[in-house]
């Protein structure tokens, strides 16, 4: 309650709401209404229309793409109630937030917490305007779940580091301008030999190869570093102190991933029952004729609802200061639901749900196939389901022993 009383009162909020309405009226191009493409993050950069570019520039320069970040670094400086109003008013006119990506979701909050003043002033404003695209240089072929086993070497060469090694799963690496990476600055120590570096992807010696996935082309890359020079001013935090920073960034990732699953569940492309009705019809009792499938759909939809209620509860408890259940739970259940939904959709579509390309399939069917395959990654990236279960058992349940 105290936070609310310190913030602008009800009247001030109404004024703010009218300001937002007026600003949107002026700046959001009506022809874009409802044209958000949620798959952009997976499918990569389609060329943006002039209107879309203008909208991005407008919201970026106002700082409202990162509404709660400080104004001094290009954010909107809003409190949570104002941000909520902004969301509501944007939704009301079919607008959406085009400022996103790894810079917003992961790097920005991390820099705000750990970076030097100079680094913040240099790197955060372009994130708020979505001018610079970031990619994540964490995983390596031998360091997946055991991230701290990473081997990419940063050799101290006085005013710069010399980077050699290979990263994988660098999401969006082929389109990125910069990369935030964990590198090894001390071979003798495992966790305490890791540093957090910002690397310009245009540097000589950086090579990016996109990874073909089971679902087809992907935003993921293998990234090779061969004698890449990185100025020391691009070290965030202390040398050998990168593990703490890197882990905090992963928390932002996990929160976004589980929130994302809740959101997807929320918007969700209509109920499974509707898909079932389309492909199987209904019987005389108005029910799906496949009773087994009907039961499983009900199980799924009930579980999805329980998941959404849990996501809301965790959020609310976190706000009200009560102990929040862990993001690991949401990550795992969200992943399970994403995958189960895809499997059920495919089952209802029958072989039409396995179309790869060419004639004979609706666009929805072809997307179902690709989405199903892509979805197998959600229980792997951002910490596998097994790792999340380890986290729950050890950190929440105290099952470590000793």
């Amino acid at each position: 309650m105290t936070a609310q009383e310190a913030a602008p009162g009800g009247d001030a909020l109404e004024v703010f709401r009218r300001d937002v309405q007026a600003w949107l009226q002026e700046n959001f191009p009506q022809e874009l209404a409802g044209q958000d493409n949620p798959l952009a993050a997976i499918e990569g950069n389609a060329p943006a229309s002039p209107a879309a570019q203008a909208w991005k520039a407008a919201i970026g320069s106002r700082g409202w793409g990162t509404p709660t970040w400080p104004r001094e670094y290009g954010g909107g400086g809003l409190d949570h109630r104002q941000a909520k109003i902004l969301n509501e008013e944007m939704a009301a006119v079919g607008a959406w937030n085009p400022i996103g990506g790894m810079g917003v979701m992961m790097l920005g909050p991390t820099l705000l917490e750990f970076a030097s003043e100079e680094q913040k002033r240099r790197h955060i404003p372009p994130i708020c305007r979505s001018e610079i695209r970031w990619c994540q240089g964490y995983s390596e072929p031998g360091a997946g779940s055991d991230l701290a086993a990473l081997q990419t070497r940063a050799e101290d060469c006085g005013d710069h580091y010399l980077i050699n090694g290979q990263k994988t799963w660098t999401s969006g690496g082929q389109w990125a301008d910069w990369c935030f990476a964990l590198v090894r600055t001390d071979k003798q120590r495992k966790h305490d030999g890791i540093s957090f570096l910002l690397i310009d992807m245009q540097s000589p010696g950086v090579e990016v190869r996109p990874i073909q996935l089971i679902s087809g082309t992907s935003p993921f890359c293998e990234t090779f570093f061969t004698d890449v020079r990185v100025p020391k001013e691009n070290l965030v935090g202390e040398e050998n102190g990168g593990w703490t920073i890197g882990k905090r960034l992963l928390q932002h990732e996990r929160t976004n991933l589980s929130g994302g699953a809740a959101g997807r569940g929320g918007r969700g492309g209509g109920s499974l029952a509707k898909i079932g009705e389309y492909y199987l019809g209904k019987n005389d009792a108005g029910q799906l004729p496949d009773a087994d499938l009907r039961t499983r759909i009900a199980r799924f939809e009930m579980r999805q609802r329980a998941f959404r209620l849990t996501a809301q509860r965790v959020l609310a408890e976190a706000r009200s200061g009560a102990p929040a259940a862990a993001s690991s739970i949401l990550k795992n259940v969200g992943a399970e639901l994403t995958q189960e939904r895809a499997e059920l959709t495919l089952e209802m579509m029958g072989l039409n749900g396995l179309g790869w390309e060419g004639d004979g399939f609706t666009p929805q069917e072809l997307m179902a196939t690709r989405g199903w395959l892509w979805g197998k990654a959600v229980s792997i990236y951002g910490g596998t389901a097994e790792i999340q279960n380890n986290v729950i058992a050890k950190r929440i349940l105290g099952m470590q022993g000793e």
Partner: protein
Amino acid sequence: MAVLNEEQRLLRDMARDWADQQSPVSAFRRLRDSGTPGVDPATWQSMANMGWAGIVIPEAHGGSNFGYLGLGLVLEESARTLTASPLAASALGAASALVLGGNPEQQARYLPGIASGELIACLAIDDGPRHQPQSFSTRASRSDDGWVLHGSKAFVAEGGQAQLLVVAAETDSGPALFLVEVDTPGLERAARHLADARDHCALQLDAVVLPEAALLGAAGDRKLLDAVLDRARIGAAAEMLGMAVQSFNLTLDYLKTRVQFDEIIARFQALQHRMARLFTEIELLRSTVEEALAAIDRDDPELPQLASLAKATANDTLHLMSREMIQLHGGIGMTDEHDAGFYLKRARVLENSWGNASFHRDRYARLCGY
């Protein structure tokens, strides 16, 4: 979505302390061993003294009108230690029937006694061993100045100690609820000993003559019946949540102390992952229960869906948890001297009360139109 306010949190903490100190599982064990299943007047008196019997009853009738979320918290905490009391039957089930369907005279006559705990009332709905509220074989026919009931009821929870029964019967215009005092001629009660060692009884209704004033609401008001049942279902789900939490905690404690192969078995990863999954399921269950309780308080039109969601989730979760509790305890959990069996047995009784998971999944799907 339910977030507890300060008063609700205080109530929950009070109930938690009370259960741990005044009503631990050992109290239930003594009751079970005593051979008079399910009745401990002193415990009920203690609960009533805290005002818990009147939580959903209007202040005008001696209650606190504190709401269903509050009552749900108390149900959860008291069931956590297997407290044998008529709280769910009387303070939730019967009180709801009177609050929702009673006329001023009926409310004034019965609610103050229920609120104070002096009058124990309960619901007598199902005619058979399975929940089938679509129709009743118990019939109520109009007589000159009232009704005559014929039929039987199976497994009326807390029916042995109740003085007032809310009896469902089929009339010519559909289902109806009747207030039947236990000394009404033609009504016979017989104890039924279930595995949970609680108070259950069967009713025989043989030309039970009731005045017009015994009818709750209107005959054929299925909405009233559903609303009462949904409250009973959610109450059962709250109790099951408490039991799941405690089963989980007891199991976790055991794993942290039991040594095999020179290792505390909590360190075995296969057990860690199973416990992580159980913890996850219980977190989901808590969300559905608190949401359903809050939905009653805010009169949410989606209450039927949310009630079925909570009860089905409670059934699935407690079923799994009670099985895992025994399995993860190994041999010791199979012995009567350990508490695990109490949770297992009570779990199945509640699973089979007010609709099992199949019933509620089917209902959920129908309510969603598929």
